[in-house]
């Protein structure tokens, strides 16, 4: 059987395999850009499911979600719809590292994403299991399902998460599964390998869930969420009310000795889990083993939704046998009587080694085949969604015959993410950290829309109505900054008293408000109060906060921009596709092999490949120049 958008011999522009966080963004982006799109997924009951913690965002990750929103993706909006608690993190630290984190109602998250998918024009959703890709002359032509039917397609995006060759491990039990209760994809990885893609193996683990009626909240710290919760999306309407609290408790010596007693049953010792796991997400077994001096580890107790009694025990990741998990939980303050509802488990799975991708997320080997999400060796919903969005955009652009859409490292965390994956590969499941971004002061949560919405509009993804909101914000910011620069603050006794209280030098003469705001300890409200006016125009609290950041960071931002300019020559020097490195004299053997494999798009990308030294880059640039000159003659 052949599946097609209509009966007149048409084929799908874009077929997305996998209805997880990556697949949903891909399908929405492609359909919204006007492509006839099919979303194929194993179960319609499990769309946008969160197998791990019921939360979106966090430091580094929250910035990704904001960027997705700015470009016209769905994750931010959907998180706001399903949010039951919102927190701005790092408020005591600088704005560049601030980020939102939302607790969501898991079920609501899935349902509202499904509702959006079902209402999207050009998008068809189909339950089914892909068993293989169909490739002809190094170009993808469609996918084959496990029942033998075929879906011809111009482009295909694989977003299969942890399902490729998935195996679950709980204690001594080990069985094939994509996630708990779901079958793995066993034929697909074979098909990928046969098409010449190299696979690796990773593992990840999730936490146990317990019954909310059985905890002793009095023995834990209650964490209510922000008093004035923000929203992830610039475009969400309404404010969040009725936040649901989380709780915080700590393991203690008792917990640790239970773990130590049973360590011989841990997969760390038994070796029953293969594949490399993330260092930033160690199991409680490993934490106790590696940090014997720590007398406690935090456990965040998070609700999984309004309509379920499940509480998620973040910090107690483990795949110890279920009976040991119960012992560990019961040894922890506040959880003495907790009843386990779902045990924690580990999953190991195949991923496609991501240096086989271009910056567009298309595979180098098979044209028009795109990969997004955990299949590329990442972990996390935000990382998955970000790639899904870019793969969706680029599949659509490929159908339209346009150049790929690539974000630079200086433009977005999404750019950093994809450049890292493609240029450096991965040796553990990749997660975003702000320290990965060399231009962190520029890539902020607060300015994501200013950075990216013009691009989202330009590629035809972000609707004009939303873009207009962003433009309005930018105008308001511009006006406010102008006003701050041209308004003088006089040294009134009240102001100087305030400054003194903040440990800041008093003013002796009038000074531009913008100048005064550069002091780390002075905030915009101090100034407005002193002048006795409210901010001009329609600057809301977000815009006021941004103006402050722009002014306080100005010197640093200038420096980062200069650094970017200095690198511009490298980043702008394109390497022609198909350039061969194998016989470049003067470039080390190792570097040539790496270059040949990665096929960098620019000299800048080449310079970031590990094993490629600055000396290699200069030699390479000479060859490029020579070639360029020869062609010009």
């Amino acid at each position: 059987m052949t599946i097609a958008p209509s009966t007149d011999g048409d084929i799908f522009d874009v077929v997305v395999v996998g209805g997880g966080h990556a697949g949903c963004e891909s399908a929405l982006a492609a359909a919204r850009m006007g492509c006839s799109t099919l979303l194929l997924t194993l179960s319609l009951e499990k769309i946008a499911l969160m197998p791990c913690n019921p939360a979106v965002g966090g430091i580094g990750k929250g910035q990704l979600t904001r960027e997705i929103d700015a470009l016209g993706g769905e994750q931010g909006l959907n998180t706001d719809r399903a949010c039951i608690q919102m927190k701005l993190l790092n408020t005591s630290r600088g704005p560049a590292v601030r980020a939102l984190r939302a607790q969501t109602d898991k079920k609501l998250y899935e349902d509202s994403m499904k509702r959006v998918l079902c209402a999207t024009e050009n998008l068809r959703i189909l339950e089914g299991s892909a068993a293989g890709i169909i490739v002809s002359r190094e170009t993808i032509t469609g996918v084959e399902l496990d029942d033998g039917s075929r879906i011809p397609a111009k482009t295909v995006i694989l977003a299969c998460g942890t399902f490729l060759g998935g195996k679950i491990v709980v204690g001594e039990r080990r069985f094939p599964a994509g996630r708990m209760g779901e079958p793995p994809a066993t034929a697909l990885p074979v098909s990928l390998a046969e098409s010449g893609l190299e696979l690796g193996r990773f593992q990840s683990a999730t936490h146990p869930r317990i019954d909310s009626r059985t905890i002793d909240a009095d023995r834990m710290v209650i964490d209510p969420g922000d008093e004035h919760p923000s929203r992830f999306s610039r475009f969400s309407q309404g404010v969040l009310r009725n936040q649901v609290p989380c709780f915080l408790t700590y393991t203690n010596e008792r917990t640790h000795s239970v773990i130590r007693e049973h360590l011989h049953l841990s997969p760390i010792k038994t070796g029953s889990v293969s594949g490399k796991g993330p260092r930033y997400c160690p199991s409680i077994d490993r934490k106790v083993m590696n940090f014997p001096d720590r007398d406690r580890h935090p456990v965040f107790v998070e609700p999984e939704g309004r309509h379920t009694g499940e509480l998620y025990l973040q910090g107690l990741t483990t795949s110890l046998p279920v009976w040991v998990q119960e012992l560990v939980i019961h040894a922890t303050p506040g959880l003495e009587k907790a009843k386990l509802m779902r045990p924690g488990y580990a999953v190991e799975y195949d991923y496609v080694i991501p240096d086989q991708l271009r910056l567009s997320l298309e595979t180098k080997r098979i044209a028009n085949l795109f990969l997004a999400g955990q299949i590329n060796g990442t972990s996390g919903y935000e990382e998955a969604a970000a790639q899904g969005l870019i793969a969706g955009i680029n599949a659509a652009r490929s159908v339209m015959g346009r150049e790929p859409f690539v974000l630079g490292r200086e433009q977005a965390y999404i750019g950093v993410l994809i450049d890292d994956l493609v240029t450096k590969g991965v040796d553990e499941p990749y997660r975003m950290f702000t320290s990965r971004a060399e231009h962190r002061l520029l890539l902020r949560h607060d300015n994501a829309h200013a950075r990216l919405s013009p691009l989202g509009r330009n590629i035809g993804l972000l609707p004009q109505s939303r873009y207009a909101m962003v433009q309005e914000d930018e105008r308001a910011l511009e006006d406010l900054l102008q006003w701050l620069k041209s308004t003088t603050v006089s040294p009134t006794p009240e102001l100087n008293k305030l400054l003194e209280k903040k440990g800041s030098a008093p003013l002796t003469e009038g000074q531009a408000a913008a100048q005064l705001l550069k002091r780390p300890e002075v905030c915009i409200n101090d100034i407005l109060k002193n002048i006795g006016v409210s901010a001009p125009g329609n600057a809301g609290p977000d815009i006021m906060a941004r103006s402050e950041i722009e002014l306080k960071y100005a010197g640093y931002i200038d420096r980062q921009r200069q650094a970017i300019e200095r690198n511009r020559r490298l980043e702008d020097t394109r390497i022609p596709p198909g350039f061969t490195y194998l016989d470049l004299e003067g470039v080390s053997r190792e570097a040539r092999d790496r270059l040949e494999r990665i096929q960098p798009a620019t000299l800048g990308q080449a310079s970031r490949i590990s094993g490629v030294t600055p000396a290699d880059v200069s030699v390479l640039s000479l060859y490029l120049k020579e070639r360029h000159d020869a062609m010009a003659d």
Partner: protein
Amino acid sequence: MQEFPTVAAISTSLGTGAIGIVRMTGPDSIAICDRLFRGRRGNLAEAASHTLHYGAIAEPESGELVDEVLVSVMRAPATYTREDVVEINCHGGPVAQQRVMSLLLAQGAGLATPGEFTRRAFLNGRIDLVQAESVAQIVSAKTEAGLRVAMSQLAGGLSREIGSLRDDILGVLASIEAGLDFSDEDIEGMDRQATGGSLTGIAGRLQELIESAFVGRVLCEGVRTAIVGKPNVGKSSLLNALLMRDRAIVTEIPGTTRDTIEEIINIDGIPLQLIDTAGLRPAGNEVERIGVERSRRAISEADLVLCLFDGSEPEDDHDRALLTSVPMDRTILVINKADLFRGRQPRFNRGLLPAEPVVISAMTRHGLSQLRERISGLVLGGALPPLEGPMVTHERHKQLLEQSLSALGRARQGLRVGLGEELVAEELHGALTALGGITGDEVVEDLLDRIFQEFCIGK
């Protein structure tokens, strides 16, 4: 490993040794040498690695002997270039070396380009970037002391010290970054005072390394010395007088071409590199102006200035102008032509001079030994540190270290005035990136390694 063609070059050991070496590296080097070598004990092809063979080099067709030689055979990979290397030690001086060399070329060896041996060592992964640059330095090291410094760099002294500084900065940065990226976890915040303390220690060590740069350069390139003075005061004569006593060390070293050979005056082991200001024969005002301009530039580039006056003539405007333009802390005042006023007061008014001059005669060489003493006194000033420990010998390295140091300075300042941690971190990233320009290491992965090693991260 990649195969490079076989190449050869003449290299003369430093100093004045009579033995000249012709070196050849590459896969065919042993075979090529075999075709010319007449040994007592058979072929080099069978020779074990790192063995020395006595014999002669002969013209392959006529059989005419060219030179008596010692050949060392060193097989890959335990060689400098990680390729097969043959060294032919010739006895017969430059002419014989030239002939051996041309025979090798005729047998198919290529001519090594300057620095080729080192480039191969680097490309074949034998040495790292810092080491490679140090070798380049050896190639141009002008004195024994300079050579010693360059050798210790090669042993990785500088790499090690920079690596250890980098490690310490990474440690500080990791503690800040852990707080930024994982603030929602159970991690103690940064202790500003302790962090400031660590940075101060690191900055001190960086400063020391930077200060070694002057000595490093002096040892490897020489003290840049300008001889200035009005026309005809005797600049060229002084230069010649100095050169005659201390025959310039002229080195012919692998990788350097003839036109880069420089002359250096060695004074008590201190190499002086003369900045050329001689040879100006002014005629007319315009040329005079250019001359003044030129000596001004020489003065600004110089580590040491020898300022000459003609003792047989009264001072003039030119002398007075010169006196105002020399930096007294690194200038030695010299009154020349003492033979013309022997025993009497010079006609030149000494009262004009702000410091005690040395009186010499470039022609009779009178006073030259006092001048030499003054030079070594001024340069060493008792302040030349002992030649041990890592030393910076490259201008580029020094600049990067300075960048790193100033970023550290801003980070420390930021800590003091309560700047945000993300901004302090920004500076430390800058400090590390600058050091990475020397060692070629990347920051992010090493940083994450440190964070995960030292902090219990993860929920």
